[in-house]
Protein backbone atom coordinates (compact mmCIF):
# COMPACT_ATOMS: atom_id res chain seq x y z
CA UNK A 1 0.00 0.00 0.00
CA UNK A 2 2.87 2.40 0.85
CA UNK A 3 4.48 1.69 -2.50
CA UNK A 4 1.18 2.22 -4.23
CA UNK A 5 0.74 5.56 -2.44
CA UNK A 6 4.16 6.69 -3.65
CA UNK A 7 3.43 5.55 -7.18
CA UNK A 8 0.02 7.18 -7.19
CA UNK A 9 1.48 10.46 -5.86
CA UNK A 10 4.10 10.53 -8.61
CA UNK A 11 1.27 9.81 -10.99
CA UNK A 12 -0.74 12.74 -9.62
CA UNK A 13 2.20 15.11 -10.06
CA UNK A 14 2.75 13.84 -13.61
CA UNK A 15 -0.93 14.35 -14.44
CA UNK A 16 -0.76 17.87 -13.02
CA UNK A 17 2.23 18.71 -15.21
CA UNK A 18 0.51 17.20 -18.22
CA UNK A 19 -2.71 19.09 -17.55
CA UNK A 20 -0.83 22.37 -17.08
CA UNK A 21 1.02 21.79 -20.36
CA UNK A 22 -2.16 20.83 -22.19
CA UNK A 23 -3.81 24.01 -20.96
CA UNK A 24 -0.83 26.07 -22.10
CA UNK A 25 -0.78 24.52 -25.57
CA UNK A 26 -4.55 24.82 -26.04
CA UNK A 27 -4.59 28.46 -25.02
CA UNK A 28 -1.64 29.37 -27.26
CA UNK A 29 -3.77 28.11 -30.16
CA UNK A 30 -6.27 30.88 -29.50
CA UNK A 31 -6.40 33.27 -32.42
CA UNK A 32 -4.88 36.71 -31.95
CA UNK A 33 -2.40 38.14 -29.50
CA UNK A 34 -3.58 38.27 -25.88
CA UNK A 35 -2.36 41.86 -25.67
CA UNK A 36 -5.09 42.87 -28.18
CA UNK A 37 -7.57 42.66 -25.32
CA UNK A 38 -5.74 45.55 -23.62
CA UNK A 39 -5.51 47.88 -26.59
CA UNK A 40 -7.89 50.55 -27.85
CA UNK A 41 -8.65 50.87 -31.58
CA UNK A 42 -5.76 52.43 -33.51
CA UNK A 43 -3.17 51.95 -30.75
CA UNK A 44 0.34 53.37 -31.32
CA UNK A 45 3.30 50.99 -31.73
CA UNK A 46 4.53 52.09 -28.27
CA UNK A 47 1.21 51.14 -26.70
CA UNK A 48 1.31 47.79 -28.50
CA UNK A 49 4.84 47.09 -27.28
CA UNK A 50 3.89 48.03 -23.73
CA UNK A 51 0.82 45.77 -23.84
CA UNK A 52 2.87 42.89 -25.20
CA UNK A 53 5.38 43.37 -22.39
CA UNK A 54 2.59 43.40 -19.82
CA UNK A 55 0.95 40.22 -21.10
CA UNK A 56 4.27 38.49 -21.69
CA UNK A 57 3.54 37.80 -25.35
CA UNK A 58 6.86 39.44 -26.32
CA UNK A 59 8.60 36.42 -24.77
CA UNK A 60 9.35 33.25 -26.73
CA UNK A 61 7.00 30.30 -26.22
CA UNK A 62 9.44 28.33 -24.01
CA UNK A 63 9.90 31.44 -21.85
CA UNK A 64 6.13 31.84 -21.58
CA UNK A 65 5.82 28.16 -20.69
CA UNK A 66 8.46 28.46 -17.97
CA UNK A 67 6.78 31.59 -16.60
CA UNK A 68 3.39 29.80 -16.58
CA UNK A 69 4.73 26.74 -14.73
CA UNK A 70 6.75 28.92 -12.34
CA UNK A 71 3.66 30.98 -11.55
CA UNK A 72 1.64 27.81 -10.87
CA UNK A 73 4.28 26.50 -8.45
CA UNK A 74 4.28 29.83 -6.60
CA UNK A 75 0.45 29.81 -6.70
CA UNK A 76 0.65 33.06 -8.67
CA UNK A 77 -1.98 33.01 -11.40
CA UNK A 78 -1.21 36.48 -12.81
CA UNK A 79 -3.35 39.59 -13.11
CA UNK A 80 -6.66 39.92 -14.91
CA UNK A 81 -6.48 42.11 -18.02
CA UNK A 82 -9.93 43.48 -17.35
CA UNK A 83 -10.22 44.05 -13.62
CA UNK A 84 -6.43 44.47 -13.08
CA UNK A 85 -6.78 42.40 -9.91
CA UNK A 86 -4.78 39.26 -9.09
CA UNK A 87 -6.55 36.25 -10.62
CA UNK A 88 -5.89 34.15 -7.51
CA UNK A 89 -7.90 36.53 -5.31
CA UNK A 90 -10.69 36.73 -7.85
CA UNK A 91 -10.94 32.94 -8.00
CA UNK A 92 -10.90 32.64 -4.21
CA UNK A 93 -13.81 35.10 -4.02
CA UNK A 94 -15.77 33.10 -6.62
CA UNK A 95 -15.08 29.83 -4.81
CA UNK A 96 -17.14 31.16 -1.90
CA UNK A 97 -20.14 30.55 -4.19
CA UNK A 98 -19.06 27.55 -6.27
CA UNK A 99 -17.65 25.33 -3.50
CA UNK A 100 -20.76 25.47 -1.26
CA UNK A 101 -22.94 25.04 -4.37
CA UNK A 102 -20.99 21.99 -5.55
CA UNK A 103 -20.62 20.33 -2.14
CA UNK A 104 -24.22 20.89 -1.02
CA UNK A 105 -25.52 19.50 -4.32
CA UNK A 106 -23.12 16.53 -4.12
CA UNK A 107 -24.06 15.63 -0.54
CA UNK A 108 -27.77 15.97 -1.26
CA UNK A 109 -27.41 13.80 -4.36
CA UNK A 110 -25.49 11.04 -2.54
CA UNK A 111 -27.87 11.03 0.43
CA UNK A 112 -30.76 10.53 -2.00
CA UNK A 113 -29.09 8.20 -4.50
CA UNK A 114 -27.50 5.49 -2.34
CA UNK A 115 -30.66 4.26 -0.57
CA UNK A 116 -32.83 4.81 -3.65
CA UNK A 117 -30.38 2.98 -5.92
CA UNK A 118 -30.26 0.06 -3.51
CA UNK A 119 -34.06 -0.04 -3.33
CA UNK A 120 -34.51 0.06 -7.11
CA UNK A 121 -32.30 -3.02 -7.36
CA UNK A 122 -33.63 -4.90 -4.35
CA UNK A 123 -37.30 -3.98 -4.44
CA UNK A 124 -37.92 -3.60 -8.16
CA UNK A 125 -41.15 -5.54 -7.82
CA UNK A 126 -42.76 -3.27 -5.20
CA UNK A 127 -45.19 -0.57 -6.27
CA UNK A 128 -42.59 2.17 -5.86
CA UNK A 129 -39.99 0.26 -7.90
CA UNK A 130 -41.10 1.53 -11.32
CA UNK A 131 -41.59 5.00 -9.81
CA UNK A 132 -37.96 5.14 -8.63
CA UNK A 133 -36.57 3.73 -11.89
CA UNK A 134 -38.74 6.23 -13.74
CA UNK A 135 -37.24 9.07 -11.72
CA UNK A 136 -33.73 7.79 -12.46
CA UNK A 137 -34.51 7.45 -16.17
CA UNK A 138 -35.97 10.95 -16.38
CA UNK A 139 -33.39 12.66 -14.19
CA UNK A 140 -30.45 11.43 -16.21
CA UNK A 141 -32.07 12.77 -19.38
CA UNK A 142 -33.05 16.23 -18.19
CA UNK A 143 -30.68 19.10 -18.93
CA UNK A 144 -29.69 20.70 -15.63
CA UNK A 145 -30.25 24.23 -16.94
CA UNK A 146 -33.79 23.36 -18.00
CA UNK A 147 -34.57 22.00 -14.52
CA UNK A 148 -33.16 25.29 -13.24
CA UNK A 149 -35.40 27.29 -15.58
CA UNK A 150 -38.49 25.33 -14.53
CA UNK A 151 -37.65 25.64 -10.82
CA UNK A 152 -37.21 29.41 -11.20
CA UNK A 153 -40.49 29.69 -13.09
CA UNK A 154 -42.46 27.78 -10.46
CA UNK A 155 -40.80 28.68 -7.15
CA UNK A 156 -39.47 32.17 -7.89
CA UNK A 157 -41.64 33.76 -10.58
CA UNK A 158 -45.00 32.13 -9.75
CA UNK A 159 -44.93 31.27 -6.05
CA UNK A 160 -42.30 33.91 -5.12
CA UNK A 161 -40.90 31.65 -2.39
CA UNK A 162 -37.21 31.98 -3.29
CA UNK A 163 -35.01 34.43 -5.18
CA UNK A 164 -34.92 33.91 -8.96
CA UNK A 165 -31.20 34.54 -9.15
CA UNK A 166 -28.23 36.56 -7.97
CA UNK A 167 -26.22 36.33 -4.77
CA UNK A 168 -26.09 38.80 -1.85
CA UNK A 169 -23.40 41.41 -2.42
CA UNK A 170 -21.95 40.87 1.06
CA UNK A 171 -21.46 37.14 0.37
CA UNK A 172 -21.83 35.02 3.49
CA UNK A 173 -22.18 37.95 5.96
CA UNK A 174 -25.90 37.10 5.95
CA UNK A 175 -25.86 33.29 5.76
CA UNK A 176 -29.65 33.06 5.50
CA UNK A 177 -29.85 35.12 2.35
CA UNK A 178 -26.83 33.40 0.83
CA UNK A 179 -28.34 29.98 1.51
CA UNK A 180 -31.70 31.06 0.10
CA UNK A 181 -29.94 32.07 -3.10
CA UNK A 182 -28.38 28.60 -3.31
CA UNK A 183 -31.50 26.49 -2.65
CA UNK A 184 -32.85 26.31 -6.20
CA UNK A 185 -29.44 25.82 -7.89
CA UNK A 186 -28.51 23.09 -5.38
CA UNK A 187 -31.81 21.28 -5.93
CA UNK A 188 -31.44 21.56 -9.71
CA UNK A 189 -27.95 20.02 -9.70
CA UNK A 190 -28.76 17.38 -7.07
CA UNK A 191 -31.87 16.19 -8.93
CA UNK A 192 -29.87 15.51 -12.07
CA UNK A 193 -26.84 14.09 -10.26
CA UNK A 194 -28.73 11.75 -7.97
CA UNK A 195 -30.53 10.30 -10.97
CA UNK A 196 -27.31 9.23 -12.66
CA UNK A 197 -25.86 8.01 -9.35
CA UNK A 198 -28.96 5.87 -8.76
CA UNK A 199 -28.21 3.98 -11.97
CA UNK A 200 -24.68 3.16 -10.85
CA UNK A 201 -25.71 2.19 -7.34
CA UNK A 202 -28.46 0.03 -8.83
CA UNK A 203 -26.17 -1.80 -11.24
CA UNK A 204 -23.47 -2.28 -8.58
CA UNK A 205 -26.10 -3.71 -6.22
CA UNK A 206 -27.54 -5.97 -8.92
CA UNK A 207 -24.07 -7.28 -9.70
CA UNK A 208 -23.45 -8.07 -6.05
CA UNK A 209 -26.89 -9.59 -5.48
CA UNK A 210 -26.41 -11.93 -8.42
CA UNK A 211 -22.86 -12.89 -7.50
CA UNK A 212 -21.74 -16.38 -6.52
CA UNK A 213 -20.14 -15.33 -3.26
CA UNK A 214 -23.40 -13.78 -2.03
CA UNK A 215 -25.28 -16.95 -2.90
CA UNK A 216 -22.63 -19.03 -1.17
CA UNK A 217 -22.72 -16.84 1.93
CA UNK A 218 -26.52 -17.12 2.04
CA UNK A 219 -26.32 -20.88 1.48
CA UNK A 220 -23.93 -21.14 4.42
CA UNK A 221 -26.65 -19.64 6.57
CA UNK A 222 -25.81 -15.95 6.73
CA UNK A 223 -28.79 -13.62 6.91
CA UNK A 224 -29.31 -11.32 3.95
CA UNK A 225 -28.24 -8.30 5.99
CA UNK A 226 -25.16 -10.12 7.28
CA UNK A 227 -24.08 -11.30 3.84
CA UNK A 228 -24.70 -7.86 2.41
CA UNK A 229 -22.71 -6.22 5.20
CA UNK A 230 -19.77 -8.63 5.11
CA UNK A 231 -19.51 -9.37 1.39
CA UNK A 232 -21.91 -7.25 -0.60
CA UNK A 233 -21.18 -3.68 0.45
CA UNK A 234 -17.43 -3.85 -0.08
CA UNK A 235 -17.89 -5.37 -3.51
CA UNK A 236 -20.43 -2.78 -4.51
CA UNK A 237 -18.48 0.09 -2.96
CA UNK A 238 -15.40 -0.01 -5.20
CA UNK A 239 -17.11 0.84 -8.51
CA UNK A 240 -19.41 3.31 -6.75
CA UNK A 241 -16.46 5.17 -5.22
CA UNK A 242 -14.81 5.42 -8.62
CA UNK A 243 -18.02 6.82 -10.07
CA UNK A 244 -18.40 9.25 -7.14
CA UNK A 245 -15.04 10.79 -8.03
CA UNK A 246 -16.17 11.37 -11.58
CA UNK A 247 -19.58 12.62 -10.45
CA UNK A 248 -18.01 15.22 -8.17
CA UNK A 249 -16.27 16.62 -11.23
CA UNK A 250 -19.56 16.49 -13.11
CA UNK A 251 -21.18 18.48 -10.33
CA UNK A 252 -18.71 21.25 -10.97
CA UNK A 253 -19.63 21.08 -14.64
CA UNK A 254 -23.27 21.38 -13.68
CA UNK A 255 -22.36 24.33 -11.49
CA UNK A 256 -20.83 26.18 -14.47
CA UNK A 257 -24.12 26.10 -16.39
CA UNK A 258 -26.43 26.46 -13.42
CA UNK A 259 -24.55 29.56 -12.27
CA UNK A 260 -25.46 31.05 -15.61
CA UNK A 261 -29.18 30.22 -15.15
CA UNK A 262 -29.29 31.78 -11.68
CA UNK A 263 -26.83 34.65 -12.34
CA UNK A 264 -24.60 33.41 -9.50
CA UNK A 265 -21.14 35.02 -9.36
CA UNK A 266 -19.25 31.71 -9.19
CA UNK A 267 -16.24 30.16 -10.90
CA UNK A 268 -18.28 29.14 -13.96
CA UNK A 269 -19.58 32.65 -14.44
CA UNK A 270 -16.00 33.93 -14.13
CA UNK A 271 -14.90 31.53 -16.87
CA UNK A 272 -17.73 32.56 -19.20
CA UNK A 273 -16.84 36.23 -18.63
CA UNK A 274 -13.16 35.46 -19.21
CA UNK A 275 -13.86 33.75 -22.54
CA UNK A 276 -16.14 36.57 -23.68
CA UNK A 277 -13.48 39.21 -22.86
CA UNK A 278 -10.43 37.18 -24.00
CA UNK A 279 -9.09 37.58 -20.47
CA UNK A 280 -6.37 34.94 -20.78
CA UNK A 281 -5.07 34.94 -17.19
CA UNK A 282 -8.61 34.43 -15.89
CA UNK A 283 -9.33 31.56 -18.33
CA UNK A 284 -6.00 29.92 -17.47
CA UNK A 285 -6.47 30.41 -13.76
CA UNK A 286 -10.01 29.05 -13.56
CA UNK A 287 -9.14 26.00 -15.65
CA UNK A 288 -5.95 25.36 -13.65
CA UNK A 289 -7.78 25.51 -10.32
CA UNK A 290 -10.67 23.31 -11.45
CA UNK A 291 -8.29 20.80 -13.05
CA UNK A 292 -6.27 20.63 -9.83
CA UNK A 293 -9.46 20.00 -7.86
CA UNK A 294 -10.59 17.20 -10.19
CA UNK A 295 -7.17 15.50 -10.16
CA UNK A 296 -7.01 15.55 -6.37
CA UNK A 297 -10.53 14.11 -6.20
CA UNK A 298 -9.48 11.31 -8.55
CA UNK A 299 -6.43 10.64 -6.36
CA UNK A 300 -8.59 10.39 -3.25
CA UNK A 301 -11.13 8.14 -5.02
CA UNK A 302 -8.39 5.74 -6.17
CA UNK A 303 -6.90 5.46 -2.68
CA UNK A 304 -10.33 4.89 -1.17
CA UNK A 305 -11.08 2.23 -3.78
CA UNK A 306 -7.88 0.35 -2.85
CA UNK A 307 -8.80 0.49 0.80
CA UNK A 308 -12.20 -1.14 0.27
CA UNK A 309 -11.25 -3.66 -2.45
CA UNK A 310 -8.13 -5.72 -1.70
CA UNK A 311 -8.32 -7.45 -5.11
CA UNK A 312 -7.19 -4.21 -6.72
CA UNK A 313 -3.98 -4.34 -4.67
CA UNK A 314 -2.75 -7.50 -6.38
CA UNK A 315 -0.90 -7.41 -9.65
CA UNK A 316 -2.83 -10.33 -11.11
CA UNK A 317 -4.60 -8.03 -13.49
CA UNK A 318 -1.63 -7.73 -15.80
CA UNK A 319 -0.72 -10.09 -18.60
Amino acid at each position, binding site marked *: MARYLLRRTA*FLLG*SLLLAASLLFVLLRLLPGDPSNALLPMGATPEQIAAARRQTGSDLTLPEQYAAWLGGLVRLDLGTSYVSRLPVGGEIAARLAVTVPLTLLAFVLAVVVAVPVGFLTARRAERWYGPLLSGFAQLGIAVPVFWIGMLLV*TVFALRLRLLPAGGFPREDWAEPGRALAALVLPVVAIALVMSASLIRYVRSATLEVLGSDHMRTARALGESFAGAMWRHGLRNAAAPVISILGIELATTFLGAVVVESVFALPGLGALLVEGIAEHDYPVIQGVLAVSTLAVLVIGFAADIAQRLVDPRLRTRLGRP
Partner: protein
Amino acid sequence: MKGFVAGCVLVGVVLALAAVSLVWLPYDPADTSGARLVPPGGAHLLGTDKLGRDLLTHLMIGARIALTAGAGSVLLGGVLGVAAGLAAGFATRWLDDALAAALDALIAFPTLLLAMLVVAVREASLGSAVLAIGLAMSAVVARLTRILVKRVLAQDYITAARTSGSSWPRVIVEHVLPNIWPTLLVNLALQFGLAVLAEASLSYLGLGPPPPNASWGRLLHEAQATVLTAPVGAIAPGILLVVLVVGVNLVADGLRDLAPGRSR
Protein backbone atom coordinates in the same frame (compact mmCIF):
# COMPACT_ATOMS: atom_id res chain seq x y z
CA MET B 1 -38.40 -5.64 -23.54
CA LYS B 2 -41.21 -3.12 -23.04
CA GLY B 3 -38.59 -0.49 -22.25
CA PHE B 4 -36.65 -1.35 -25.38
CA VAL B 5 -39.72 -0.87 -27.59
CA ALA B 6 -40.64 2.37 -25.81
CA GLY B 7 -37.08 3.59 -26.32
CA CYS B 8 -37.21 2.80 -30.03
CA VAL B 9 -40.48 4.73 -30.32
CA LEU B 10 -39.07 7.79 -28.50
CA VAL B 11 -35.88 7.84 -30.57
CA GLY B 12 -38.05 7.25 -33.65
CA VAL B 13 -40.03 10.42 -32.96
CA VAL B 14 -36.88 12.54 -32.96
CA LEU B 15 -35.45 10.66 -35.95
CA ALA B 16 -38.67 11.32 -37.86
CA LEU B 17 -38.58 15.04 -37.01
CA ALA B 18 -34.98 15.23 -38.20
CA ALA B 19 -35.64 13.22 -41.36
CA VAL B 20 -38.64 15.33 -42.36
CA SER B 21 -36.67 18.52 -41.68
CA LEU B 22 -34.23 17.49 -44.42
CA VAL B 23 -36.93 17.62 -47.10
CA TRP B 24 -39.64 19.87 -45.71
CA LEU B 25 -39.99 22.61 -43.09
CA PRO B 26 -43.20 24.48 -42.19
CA TYR B 27 -41.41 27.84 -42.53
CA ASP B 28 -38.02 29.23 -43.46
CA PRO B 29 -35.98 29.13 -40.21
CA ALA B 30 -34.85 32.75 -40.75
CA ASP B 31 -38.41 33.94 -41.52
CA THR B 32 -39.33 36.57 -38.91
CA SER B 33 -42.48 37.76 -40.70
CA GLY B 34 -44.86 35.99 -38.29
CA ALA B 35 -46.49 37.82 -35.40
CA ARG B 36 -44.46 37.73 -32.17
CA LEU B 37 -45.16 35.25 -29.37
CA VAL B 38 -48.22 33.79 -31.08
CA PRO B 39 -49.80 31.07 -28.92
CA PRO B 40 -49.98 27.51 -30.38
CA GLY B 41 -52.58 26.77 -33.04
CA GLY B 42 -53.58 28.17 -36.41
CA ALA B 43 -50.88 28.95 -38.95
CA HIS B 44 -48.14 28.26 -36.39
CA LEU B 45 -48.80 24.85 -34.87
CA LEU B 46 -46.64 25.52 -31.79
CA GLY B 47 -46.67 29.31 -31.95
CA THR B 48 -43.80 31.74 -32.58
CA ASP B 49 -40.90 33.14 -30.56
CA LYS B 50 -40.19 36.74 -29.61
CA LEU B 51 -38.81 37.41 -33.11
CA GLY B 52 -41.86 35.93 -34.84
CA ARG B 53 -40.07 32.73 -35.95
CA ASP B 54 -42.02 29.48 -36.15
CA LEU B 55 -41.25 27.24 -33.17
CA LEU B 56 -42.00 23.90 -34.86
CA THR B 57 -39.55 24.73 -37.67
CA HIS B 58 -36.81 25.35 -35.14
CA LEU B 59 -37.64 22.25 -33.14
CA MET B 60 -37.25 20.14 -36.30
CA ILE B 61 -33.89 21.68 -37.14
CA GLY B 62 -32.91 21.21 -33.51
CA ALA B 63 -33.68 17.48 -33.78
CA ARG B 64 -31.21 17.22 -36.65
CA ILE B 65 -28.55 19.10 -34.71
CA ALA B 66 -29.05 17.04 -31.56
CA LEU B 67 -28.74 13.73 -33.41
CA THR B 68 -25.67 14.91 -35.30
CA ALA B 69 -24.03 16.08 -32.07
CA GLY B 70 -24.74 12.78 -30.31
CA ALA B 71 -23.77 10.46 -33.16
CA GLY B 72 -20.64 12.40 -34.10
CA SER B 73 -19.38 12.56 -30.53
CA VAL B 74 -20.04 8.88 -29.82
CA LEU B 75 -18.33 7.81 -33.03
CA LEU B 76 -15.25 9.90 -32.31
CA GLY B 77 -15.15 9.16 -28.60
CA GLY B 78 -16.01 5.46 -28.94
CA VAL B 79 -13.38 4.63 -31.54
CA LEU B 80 -10.61 6.60 -29.84
CA GLY B 81 -11.63 5.51 -26.36
CA VAL B 82 -11.95 1.75 -26.88
CA ALA B 83 -8.67 1.64 -28.79
CA ALA B 84 -6.81 3.56 -26.09
CA GLY B 85 -8.47 1.60 -23.30
CA LEU B 86 -7.57 -1.78 -24.81
CA ALA B 87 -4.01 -0.59 -25.36
CA ALA B 88 -3.72 0.59 -21.76
CA GLY B 89 -5.32 -2.56 -20.38
CA PHE B 90 -2.73 -4.73 -22.11
CA ALA B 91 0.26 -2.41 -21.96
CA THR B 92 3.35 -2.94 -19.88
CA ARG B 93 3.26 -1.27 -16.52
CA TRP B 94 5.22 1.77 -17.65
CA LEU B 95 3.11 2.47 -20.73
CA ASP B 96 -0.09 1.76 -18.81
CA ASP B 97 0.89 4.34 -16.19
CA ALA B 98 1.69 6.90 -18.87
CA LEU B 99 -1.62 6.31 -20.67
CA ALA B 100 -3.56 6.35 -17.44
CA ALA B 101 -1.92 9.63 -16.45
CA ALA B 102 -2.78 11.13 -19.83
CA LEU B 103 -6.38 9.94 -19.45
CA ASP B 104 -6.62 11.37 -15.95
CA ALA B 105 -5.31 14.68 -17.18
CA LEU B 106 -7.87 14.69 -20.01
CA ILE B 107 -10.72 13.64 -17.75
CA ALA B 108 -9.69 16.33 -15.31
CA PHE B 109 -10.92 18.84 -17.86
CA PRO B 110 -14.67 18.56 -17.46
CA THR B 111 -16.27 18.08 -20.90
CA LEU B 112 -17.95 21.42 -20.87
CA LEU B 113 -14.76 23.33 -20.00
CA LEU B 114 -12.85 21.54 -22.73
CA ALA B 115 -15.67 22.34 -25.14
CA MET B 116 -15.64 25.99 -24.10
CA LEU B 117 -11.89 26.11 -24.75
CA VAL B 118 -12.25 24.50 -28.17
CA VAL B 119 -15.04 26.90 -29.04
CA ALA B 120 -12.82 29.82 -28.02
CA VAL B 121 -9.93 28.43 -30.09
CA ARG B 122 -11.98 27.62 -33.18
CA GLU B 123 -15.48 29.06 -33.45
CA ALA B 124 -18.94 28.49 -32.03
CA SER B 125 -20.13 25.74 -34.37
CA LEU B 126 -21.49 22.21 -34.31
CA GLY B 127 -18.11 20.89 -35.46
CA SER B 128 -16.30 22.48 -32.51
CA ALA B 129 -18.86 21.06 -30.12
CA VAL B 130 -18.60 17.52 -31.57
CA LEU B 131 -14.80 17.64 -31.59
CA ALA B 132 -14.62 18.77 -27.97
CA ILE B 133 -17.34 16.46 -26.65
CA GLY B 134 -15.94 13.49 -28.59
CA LEU B 135 -12.42 14.07 -27.28
CA ALA B 136 -13.59 14.44 -23.71
CA MET B 137 -15.75 11.33 -24.11
CA SER B 138 -12.87 9.28 -25.52
CA ALA B 139 -10.98 9.72 -22.25
CA VAL B 140 -13.96 8.55 -20.22
CA VAL B 141 -14.56 5.57 -22.53
CA ALA B 142 -10.86 4.68 -22.48
CA ARG B 143 -10.75 4.75 -18.69
CA LEU B 144 -13.81 2.51 -18.47
CA THR B 145 -12.45 0.12 -21.11
CA ARG B 146 -9.13 -0.05 -19.26
CA ILE B 147 -10.82 -0.88 -15.94
CA LEU B 148 -13.10 -3.47 -17.58
CA VAL B 149 -10.19 -5.10 -19.41
CA LYS B 150 -8.15 -5.29 -16.22
CA ARG B 151 -11.07 -6.77 -14.31
CA VAL B 152 -11.54 -9.46 -16.96
CA LEU B 153 -7.82 -10.19 -17.16
CA ALA B 154 -7.73 -10.81 -13.40
CA GLN B 155 -10.21 -13.69 -13.78
CA ASP B 156 -9.16 -17.30 -13.49
CA TYR B 157 -10.56 -18.27 -16.89
CA ILE B 158 -8.07 -15.94 -18.56
CA THR B 159 -5.22 -17.72 -16.77
CA ALA B 160 -6.82 -20.99 -17.83
CA ALA B 161 -7.10 -19.90 -21.46
CA ARG B 162 -3.51 -18.67 -21.46
CA THR B 163 -2.22 -21.83 -19.82
CA SER B 164 -4.02 -23.95 -22.38
CA GLY B 165 -2.23 -22.09 -25.14
CA SER B 166 -4.57 -19.35 -26.40
CA SER B 167 -2.76 -16.36 -27.89
CA TRP B 168 -3.52 -12.87 -26.55
CA PRO B 169 -5.43 -11.78 -29.69
CA ARG B 170 -7.57 -14.89 -29.34
CA VAL B 171 -8.15 -14.17 -25.65
CA ILE B 172 -9.24 -10.62 -26.57
CA VAL B 173 -11.72 -11.79 -29.16
CA GLU B 174 -13.06 -14.79 -27.25
CA HIS B 175 -12.99 -13.61 -23.64
CA VAL B 176 -12.25 -9.93 -23.19
CA LEU B 177 -14.51 -8.26 -25.76
CA PRO B 178 -17.57 -10.49 -25.14
CA ASN B 179 -17.26 -9.75 -21.43
CA ILE B 180 -16.86 -6.00 -21.71
CA TRP B 181 -19.12 -5.07 -24.62
CA PRO B 182 -22.47 -5.10 -22.78
CA THR B 183 -21.13 -2.62 -20.22
CA LEU B 184 -19.40 -0.61 -22.95
CA LEU B 185 -22.48 -0.46 -25.14
CA VAL B 186 -24.65 0.72 -22.27
CA ASN B 187 -22.03 3.31 -21.42
CA LEU B 188 -21.77 4.52 -25.04
CA ALA B 189 -25.54 4.95 -25.17
CA LEU B 190 -25.38 6.93 -21.94
CA GLN B 191 -22.55 8.94 -23.49
CA PHE B 192 -24.77 9.65 -26.52
CA GLY B 193 -27.33 11.15 -24.18
CA LEU B 194 -24.65 13.07 -22.29
CA ALA B 195 -23.24 14.39 -25.58
CA VAL B 196 -26.68 15.64 -26.61
CA LEU B 197 -27.04 17.30 -23.21
CA ALA B 198 -23.51 18.78 -23.36
CA GLU B 199 -24.23 20.29 -26.77
CA ALA B 200 -27.47 21.72 -25.42
CA SER B 201 -25.56 23.23 -22.46
CA LEU B 202 -23.00 24.81 -24.77
CA SER B 203 -25.77 26.26 -26.88
CA TYR B 204 -27.58 27.46 -23.78
CA LEU B 205 -24.40 29.37 -22.84
CA GLY B 206 -24.39 30.88 -26.34
CA LEU B 207 -21.43 28.77 -27.53
CA GLY B 208 -23.27 26.40 -29.90
CA PRO B 209 -24.19 26.62 -33.58
CA PRO B 210 -25.37 30.15 -34.42
CA PRO B 211 -28.94 31.02 -35.55
CA PRO B 212 -30.94 30.50 -37.71
CA ASN B 213 -29.95 26.83 -37.38
CA ALA B 214 -30.05 26.90 -33.60
CA SER B 215 -30.07 23.87 -31.33
CA TRP B 216 -32.62 23.14 -28.61
CA GLY B 217 -30.28 24.60 -25.97
CA ARG B 218 -30.26 28.01 -27.61
CA LEU B 219 -34.04 27.91 -28.13
CA LEU B 220 -34.41 27.35 -24.38
CA HIS B 221 -32.06 30.23 -23.60
CA GLU B 222 -33.97 32.56 -25.91
CA ALA B 223 -37.31 31.48 -24.44
CA GLN B 224 -36.19 31.97 -20.82
CA ALA B 225 -36.99 35.70 -20.80
CA THR B 226 -40.56 35.12 -22.02
CA VAL B 227 -41.32 32.00 -19.99
CA LEU B 228 -44.42 33.50 -18.32
CA THR B 229 -45.98 34.90 -21.53
CA ALA B 230 -44.96 32.11 -23.94
CA PRO B 231 -44.34 28.94 -21.90
CA VAL B 232 -44.44 26.57 -24.89
CA GLY B 233 -41.12 27.87 -26.21
CA ALA B 234 -39.49 27.26 -22.83
CA ILE B 235 -40.98 23.77 -22.46
CA ALA B 236 -41.13 22.08 -25.87
CA PRO B 237 -37.36 22.00 -26.63
CA GLY B 238 -36.72 20.62 -23.14
CA ILE B 239 -39.31 17.88 -23.61
CA LEU B 240 -37.74 16.87 -26.92
CA LEU B 241 -34.30 16.73 -25.28
CA VAL B 242 -35.69 14.47 -22.57
CA VAL B 243 -37.54 12.31 -25.14
CA LEU B 244 -34.37 11.74 -27.14
CA VAL B 245 -32.11 11.02 -24.17
CA VAL B 246 -34.63 8.80 -22.34
CA GLY B 247 -35.24 6.94 -25.60
CA VAL B 248 -31.56 6.24 -26.15
CA ASN B 249 -31.10 5.14 -22.54
CA LEU B 250 -34.08 2.76 -22.74
CA VAL B 251 -32.67 1.23 -25.91
CA ALA B 252 -29.36 0.78 -24.10
CA ASP B 253 -31.03 -0.90 -21.13
CA GLY B 254 -32.90 -3.20 -23.49
CA LEU B 255 -29.68 -4.17 -25.20
CA ARG B 256 -28.03 -4.88 -21.85
CA ASP B 257 -30.87 -7.11 -20.75
CA LEU B 258 -30.78 -8.94 -24.09
CA ALA B 259 -27.05 -9.56 -23.83
CA PRO B 260 -26.09 -13.19 -23.19
CA GLY B 261 -25.35 -14.23 -19.65
CA ARG B 262 -26.83 -11.11 -18.14
CA SER B 263 -30.14 -11.59 -16.44
CA ARG B 264 -31.74 -9.15 -14.07
